[in-house]
């Protein structure tokens, strides 16, 4: 005779408490994301610290908002977004003396360094991934090379930056002939003489390579063996099968990996800050010092105050929106292009 033994009520309580606790912890992630957007947005719109959001704070912004446009009582609290509006994105001067701020130079620098880096890193990374998934070398050796490339991703960016600073003169020696012979091209139009945008792009390539290689290698490895056999069986050469069957089948992962890498490039800070020269003058030449949004933040935030802080947060907001869009696109692309093959 079995009796149905009811579990003690404490057990149920522990169970419930545990489930609730995990859901709270999971929510922390979402709250953090919202918090980041909110805080950065707040600092871009207002001057002053976020605690003034509390109604009982002595300087609560809620009193000020009641007097919306009153210069005397509240106008001083407005930050960069109301001050500079969307013109911020098209203004290339960054002048702490006249308090005139625009993010065109760092936005251009961010996009240009990332685009250049991606342009070099995608073929290199996908090529390396192909090399590591095809039978060029014995499996063991390929695994070792794959591990080495993964390690590259683990090297701190500040160490890469330090290395880049030490190597600067050698790279300048490479750039100088480009300037000498192709100086009529706007991209090569200044004499390379110190930290510059091209160096920053090259360091980004080193940082993106392992990401692109790892993601592409995984997606190439996931292409079913039968597909490769199918291509070989109709007499395809190795490279026909790679270009026409394997890469198309793995394209969602490869594109997703490239987008992921782009997101990283846009926000990469330390190595770029150390080698880009941090100039806020707009120049089309890759051999001129320049800046990216992230390097601007790293370089100026420490000494900034008042409206300049707010302008920096405005720039940070632009960077956040950029990386957010890139990451969302990456996720959508991966879902859209995902191969339905089992």
């Amino acid at each position: 005779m079995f009796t149905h033994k009811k579990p003690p009520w404490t057990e149920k309580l522990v169970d419930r408490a545990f489930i609730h606790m995990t859901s709270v912890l999971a929510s922390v992630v979402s709250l953090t994301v919202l918090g980041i957007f909110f805080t950065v947005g707040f600092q871009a719109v207002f001057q002053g610290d976020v605690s003034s959001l509390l109604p009982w704070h002595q300087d609560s912004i809620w009193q000020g908002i009641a007097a919306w446009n009153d210069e005397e009582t509240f106008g001083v609290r407005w930050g960069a977004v109301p001050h500079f509006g969307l013109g911020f994105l098209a203004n290339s001067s960054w002048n702490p003396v006249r308090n005139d701020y625009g993010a065109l130079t760092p936005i251009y620098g961010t996009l240009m360094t990332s685009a250049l880096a991606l342009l070099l890193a995608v073929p290199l990374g996908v090529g390396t991934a192909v090399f590591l998934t095809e039978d060029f070398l014995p499996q063991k050796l390929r695994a070792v090379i794959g591990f080495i490339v993964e390690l590259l991703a683990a090297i701190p960016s500040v160490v890469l930056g330090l290395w880049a600073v030490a190597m600067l003169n050698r790279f300048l020696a490479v750039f100088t002939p480009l300037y000498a012979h192709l100086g009529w091209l706007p991209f090569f139009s200044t004499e390379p003489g110190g930290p510059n945008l091209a160096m920053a792009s090259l360091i980004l390539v080193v940082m993106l390579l392992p990401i692109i290689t790892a993601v592409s290698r995984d997606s190439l490895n996931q292409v079913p063996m039968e597909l490769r056999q199918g291509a070989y069986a109709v007499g395809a050469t190795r490279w026909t099968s790679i270009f026409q069957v394997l890469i198309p089948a793995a394209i969602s992962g490869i594109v997703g990996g490239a987008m992921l890498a782009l997101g990283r490039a846009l926000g990469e800070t330390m190595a770029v800050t150390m080698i880009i020269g941090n100039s806020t003058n707009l120049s089309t030449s890759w051999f001129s010092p320049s800046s990216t949004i992230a390097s601007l933040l790293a370089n100026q935030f420490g000494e900034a105050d008042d409206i300049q802080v707010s302008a920096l947060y405005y720039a940070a907001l632009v960077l956040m929106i950029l990386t957010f869009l890139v990451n969302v696109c990456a996720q959508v692309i991966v879902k859209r292009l995902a191969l339905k093959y089992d």
Partner: protein
Amino acid sequence: MTSNMTNAMASIRHPPTASGLNYNPCAPRNLWNRAMNLLVALFALMAVLPLVVVIGYVLYKGGGAITPAVFTELPPAPGLSEPMGMGNAIIGTAMVTGGAALVAVPVGVGGGIYLAEVARKGSFAQSIRFGVNVLAGVPSIICGLFIYALVVNTRVLWGESFSAMAGSLALAVLMLPTIVKTTDEGLKLVPQELRMGSLGIGASRFVTITRVVAPAAVSPIATGVVLAIARAAGETAPLIFTALFSPFWPDWSSGGGLLAPTATMSVQIYNFGIMPFEPQVQLAWAASFILVVMILAANLLARWLARFSAS
């Protein structure tokens, strides 16, 4: 004997023709294939080269700068060359990274358990997964600015502004998505039968998860945690406006050293690496050496953990 026979018969039946089966080294498709083979081999070499060069250079430059004093002394004042140490930054990195792990590991593992074991596929879980992906993509410098605005500028931590604790929080934000993801994915690898078995004999979900499922996934989770901590130890951007820097030993009187500006190795590399003083640059290399060795060790440890789980 038989072999010779068949062979002879075969060649009688089929007189050898100048067959088109032979490899034609000049056919366009073969030229193209060889060129591409060469190209990707070159690409792979170029991908491996930077690592070898960077690690080699760091070990060479940094290894030469390592002396016992590095671990026990403070850095010299600018312009001086004595003492040559960075003991404060080594302690600082341990404090800040350790603090970050203390925050991020419980939250991240808890969140991962929620995603993999509790919510699984609901829309709330999907929105959190989306949040995890967005957080993973937030540039690290922005994590620093976020904590600066939230903690440093408002002085909510006992009235202090820049502090090791603020640095830990910034790093924790950075580590969180990695830990949630590895936990989520590690738990998904645990076979469903294990859960069924445990729930089937009347165990509660709490017991099932903590005693049966989580232990089965411990090694992938540990792998992820080790890698996340190693990565965080080398992060600089989130710390430059939160933990800041300090040329002194931690001020133990201020919250056990946690509430004062704190030196870390990564920020030291940034600060010293671009200084015009040779001793400082030396110390930047020494710090790089220690970080790189630590990270390589962590990666090997993670590999070992992963292999441990495979067997």
